């Protein structure tokens, strides 16, 4: 395979060279355990403190509100279970949506089996929740609202500030899964009224296996991982020092260049949206036309199935996804696409193309050139297409 065009930045990103460079000293030179008081340990401890400062600053929070984890899924599990367990004397009702990432959704389902009640808010055709429905769902025993910042499949950005306001007015904790939003838009946790927020490094050119949970001061939460006194005794385990350092470097790069980054990928995204629309019939753009992640394109390509599209694209070097990468193993139609009202066959034929910092104009041109004939070939093979074209 010669040409390789990676358009799956929402699944994971390549690490930036600066990130790798920042991590290197911590693998086998300054490798000490940060809990140790000797020089080796203090070097790592200092690196973690610095990383925490950088991440805190990027969110307008304070360093003692940032807790490092092993990724977005752990952060989501910790937030949801931690709040549920610590506040059950107040109530056992949680509000979420039916378009959350599985890390939130499956955690909520688990809690249902443990005796909690969960309200799954539905979304409109663009993937947006209704503020009125949210208000109506709040009960005296509601302890947590967990609604994602931006959707990983269709890119829709929720009205976070309004949700934060409602949570605050009702004295309910508000957690948001910002794994996709972080690094792709400005986030000020105070201004937005967020109590807990999950982020993950590998979605913004940082290392896999590192994430963080923002926990506002004073929030009552149980631990998920008990043990040593790391992370102010709230998340045990020898710190992944290179991972944390790399995460912070990635955040720093992202925030230094946030406006440029957004401008760059928004223009590529729009070029891709327009270019494909012009060349392919029976396309439906999923997600909100404007309230969407700058790098997200999600098209339903009618009469064809997603995996065969992915395979065909892979044969010409294009990497993208059909629904979330995390769910592609199951091959069930994406719960997000079903939630916005697509039929099964249309949901199966969706393609998510997410652009990022290393995407070029030529990459987009290449996709606009290669995708239409692939779609045409597969449609010619499709028994669903023949009806539309007036076949027998």
């Amino acid at each position, binding site marked *: 395979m010669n040409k390789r065009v990676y358009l799956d930045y929402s699944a994971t990103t390549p690490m930036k060279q600066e990130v790798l460079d920042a991590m290197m000293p911590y693998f086998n030179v300054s490798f000490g355990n940060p809990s140790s008081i000797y020089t080796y340990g203090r070097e790592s401890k200092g690196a973690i403190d610095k990383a925490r400062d950088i991440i805190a600053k990027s969110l307008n929070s304070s360093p003692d509100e940032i807790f490092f984890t092993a990724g977005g899924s752990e952060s989501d599990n910790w937030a949801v279970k931690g709040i549920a367990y610590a506040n059950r004397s107040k109530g056992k009702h949680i509000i979420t949506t039916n378009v959350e990432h599985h890390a939130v959704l*499956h955690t909520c*389902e*688990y809690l249902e*089996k443990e005796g909690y009640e969960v309200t799954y808010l539905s979304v409109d055709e663009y993937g947006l929740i209704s503020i009125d429905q949210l208000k109506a769902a709040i009960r005296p025993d509601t302890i947590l609202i967990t609604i994602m910042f931006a959707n990983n499949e269709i890119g829709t950005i929720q009205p976070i500030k309004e949700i934060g306001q409602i949570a605050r007015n009702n004295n309910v904790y508000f957690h948001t899964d910002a794994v996709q939003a972080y690094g792709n838009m400005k986030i000020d946790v105070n201004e937005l009224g967020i109590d807990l927020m999950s982020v993950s490094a590998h979605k913004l050119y940082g290392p896999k296996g590192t994430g963080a949970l923002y926990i506002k001061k004073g929030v009552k939460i149980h631990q998920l991982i008990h043990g040593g006194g790391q992370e102010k005794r709230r998340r045990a385990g020898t710190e992944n020092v290179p991972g944390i350092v790399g995460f912070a470097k990635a955040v720093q790069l992202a925030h230094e260049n946030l406006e440029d980054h957004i401008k760059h990928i928004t223009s590529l995204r729009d070029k891709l949206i327009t270019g494909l629309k012009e060349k392919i019939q029976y396309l439906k753009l999923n997600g909100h036309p404007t309230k969407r992640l700058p790098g997200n394109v999600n098209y339903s390509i009618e*009469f*064809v*199935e*997603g*995996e*065969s599209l992915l*395979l*065909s694209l892979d*044969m010409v070097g294009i990497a993208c996804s059909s629904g979330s990468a995390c769910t592609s*193993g*199951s*091959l*069930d*139609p994406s719960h997000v696409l079903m939630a916005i009202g697509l*039929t*099964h*066959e249309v949901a*199966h034929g969706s393609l998510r193309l997410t652009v990022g910092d290393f995407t070029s104009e030529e990459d987009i041109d290449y996709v606009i050139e290669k995708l239409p004939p692939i779609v045409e070939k597969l449609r*010619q*093979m*499709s*028994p*669903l*297409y*023949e009806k539309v074209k007036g*076949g*027998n």
Partner: protein
Amino acid sequence: MYSDKVMEHFMNPRNVGEIENPDAVGQVGNPKCGDIMKMYLKIEDDVIVDVKFKTFGCGSAIATSSIATEMIKGKTVEEALNLTNRAVAEALDGLPPVKMHCSVLAEQAVKSAIYDYAKRNNLSYDGLDGFDPNDEHDHHHDIEEDH
């Protein structure tokens, strides 16, 4: 993930298309599972002289359709009814476990077309015993999620 043979059949599927005035047509699968196979047969003297397919589905659905048509072309109807999903999968050098259902679908597409042929011509075949073309059992969800 897929064997070279699967990829080869996926990229260059044999016998794609329709047959005008077919002697039999069968369709199986449902959009919920993301796989629909439609098979057209031309049958002369109890021999499948031509076969075409159209498939909406994943790579292995297309590959199993393709190889299934190859495997039954030139065979008698009875021989075609002996085609098992296992044989289809083996002919493709195997399928990933989560994709075995595609080979089942290919077997059923063949049976379903022959069922149509039998109905049209008032015939009956041992190989169709117990086969119900409307029996759309759900081939996915075999893996139970633990919690």
